[in-house]
């Protein structure tokens, strides 16, 4: 920045820094796919395996995208990392799984009950998670809105632990199976040798309409306008007659609802749920939100898809036990190279 005022133009070191700032993150992101593409081409002569990683990655990434939007919305409006958001996602999974079991749906159920059962589970998970998120904001964040930033961050961590233990008591410490209503791993059709499974279709069918509704709500509706105004400047928004408290609650509601939907997809996709999925899932989704540029809706979706792809490649080729370390490694790299993310931050103090 200072260098720009020097007439002779920025020195070489500055230019290198700028280059790293602009393309560094993209280059880091390309390492894994390019490496594995070369490996596939030399070993097998085609890119089918990478393509399968990509498809599974994208449908997995849709889950992270939905959760990441919750992080990004909340961060945009109250500048707080909602640590408990991952647990909201977990509770969403639990609600939908419980409803499916209560309704008595099994693998052998006919298509129509399965469809309506899933729809009911989706709605209930969204309502439950959304309400929970609003309650959390009421209890843990609102009293601390004018305290130093450290305070709500710590209550967020506390809240996350409480919810984790709620999940532990609810479904026990081990992974729980969910009836595989959709035969998630069944191949629906193949494109260029890449198999598309039922679960992939489910995640696309649920995610895309939700995203469209969400973005048009935020961009078109009156309440969405209020949300954007509050994110830009809460004081000014309040002076313009916007009820800031309600708007913040609404933001938490929307974020929670998306996390609930993600919870259902996760339960159907993985067909197992457990209380700890929220912790890792939350961190992965947060990485996605930061990768896209926190506060940026499209960024969160993009980041989610990319992280899903990375995760899938790592699961498939390096080993599932390394996946968290790799995703967190990416998080650190983003922080080093470009804290503002791929598409840029849209927050008050992004500067």
């Amino acid at each position: 920045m200072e260098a720009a005022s020097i007439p002779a133009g920025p020195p070489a070191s500055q230019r290198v820094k700028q280059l790293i700032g602009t393309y560094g993150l993209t280059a880091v992101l390309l390492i894994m796919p390019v490496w594995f593409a070369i490996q596939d081409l030399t070993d097998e002569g085609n890119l089918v395996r990478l393509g399968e990683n990509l498809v599974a990655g994208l449908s997995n990434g849709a889950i992270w995208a939905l959760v990441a939007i919750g992080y990004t919305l909340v961060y945009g409006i109250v500048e707080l990392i909602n640590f408990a958001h991952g647990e909201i996602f977990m509770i969403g999974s639990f609600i939908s799984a419980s409803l499916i079991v209560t309704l008595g749906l099994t693998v052998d159920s006919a298509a129509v009950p399965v469809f309506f059962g899933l729809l009911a589970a989706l709605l209930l998970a969204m309502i439950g998670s959304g309400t929970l998120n609003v309650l959390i904001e009421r209890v843990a964040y609102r009293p601390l809105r004018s305290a130093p930033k450290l305070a709500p961050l710590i209550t967020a961590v506390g809240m996350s632990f409480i919810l984790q233990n709620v999940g532990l008591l609810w479904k026990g410490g081990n992974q729980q199976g969910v009836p595989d209503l959709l035969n998630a791993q069944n191949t629906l059709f193949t494109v260029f040798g890449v198999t598309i499974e039922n679960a992939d279709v489910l995640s696309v069918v649920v995610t895309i309409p939700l995203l469209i509704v969400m973005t048009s709500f935020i961009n078109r509706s009156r309440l969405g306008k209020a949300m954007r105004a509050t994110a830009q400047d809460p004081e000014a928004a309040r002076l313009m007659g916007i009820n800031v408290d309600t708007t913040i609650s609404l933001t938490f509601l929307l974020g929670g609802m998306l996390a609930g939907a993600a919870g259902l997809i996760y339960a159907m996709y993985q067909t197992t749920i457990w209380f700890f999925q929220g912790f890792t899932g939350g961190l992965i989704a947060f990485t996605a939100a930061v990768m896209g540029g926190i506060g940026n809706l499209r960024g969160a979706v993009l980041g989610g898809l990319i992280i899903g792809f990375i995760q899938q490649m790592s699961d498939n080729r390096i080993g599932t036990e390394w996946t968290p370390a790799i995703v967190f490694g990416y998080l650190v790299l983003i922080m080093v190279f470009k804290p503002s993310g791929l598409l840029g931050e849209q927050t008050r103090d992004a500067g």
Partner: protein
Amino acid sequence: MSVAASEAQQTPPEQKKGFELPGWAEKILIPAIVLLIAIVLPLIPSIGENAALMQQMAVALAYVVMALGLNIIVGFAGLLDLGYVAFFAFGAFAVGWFASGHFAYVNNEQGIHLLVGGNTVNLPGIHFNFLIVLVIAVILTTIAGMIIGLPTLRLRGDYIAIVTLAFGEIIGRLAVNLDGTTILGGTPVTAGRQGISPVDRIDLPFLDPFTVLDKKPWFYFALFLVVLVLFVNFRLRDSRMGRAWVALREDEIAAVAMGVPAVKTKLMAYGAGAAFGGLSGAYLASLLNTVNADQFQFSFSILVLAMVILGGLGSIWGVVIGAIVLSILNNWLIPDVINDLPSNVGLEFDMTQITFAIYGFLLLLMMILRPQGLLPERRHQMELTEHAETTDETLYTARS
């Protein structure tokens, strides 16, 4: 009898809240009394001969050291570190690597020995004297702390929390997963979830080697560590560096404008805080006689953070009390006293299962009701309560 022990340790510092003591009494008298009680306690046979109780007391003191270290990072410098467990891990691995039979194949299975006595001389593996291991642990963790601190320097407060958390998780993952990667003639780097065990017991010069049965020397060594760390902590707080930490915490822009070097100051905070974590980690590894990857989980970071928050961010005595209270809660109250409470009222779970919900609840409660902690530091209390009072209402009334 363990009730008596724990209460005796707690009461004296808490008297301070009730009435004001003259400065010299507050500074010297109360710490001296507490120290005296701590020294005398193990001499009472019913306490000193109870190995399980002494072990728990020693662990509590190790937690005090750990919490004092985190207090430097979070309390003094205001950098929320959620990956403190990484330093515990490095400290513990200093023992696992340099004071155990883990690397059995080094030096043609003869082992490397440095200033160790007794039977240890004949054992394979790397065996250094515990004091040397402590130095290694401190160096290792200081470097690790600075490396972890580096990428967070440019970041805003809440990003720091996430990046340190990510680092902590990465270190934990490495500890679990590196049991397949072999070095030094065929030994895996870590022993994963099985743990490196046994490790050397502490063997100090001029003293008999510590034994498993008699926990008194362990307790006294931990007490020595606490006193040492307390002394360093007080000196650091009142030093130029300590004032720079507080200045950065309160207003980074103003501090930098006044000539406080932000990078160096923050790195020093990470380094110093990490060093104490390493010290305590090495001691704990030797005391617990294992270096196990399952110890290095996120929840441990939260446990230590809860100690700091409970006692009061930035308050040295407060953190000591917080660490002791939570140790009692963690190691005795929850597993032994109220564990059966839910099943007695007809609920199907044990209290130990929801230990971390209790800590989470504690964090929540403290932050909302008493953010300055049990025994607040004066300056921090001002900071935390002043901010809380400047709500919109007060702003509006001030304007009109």
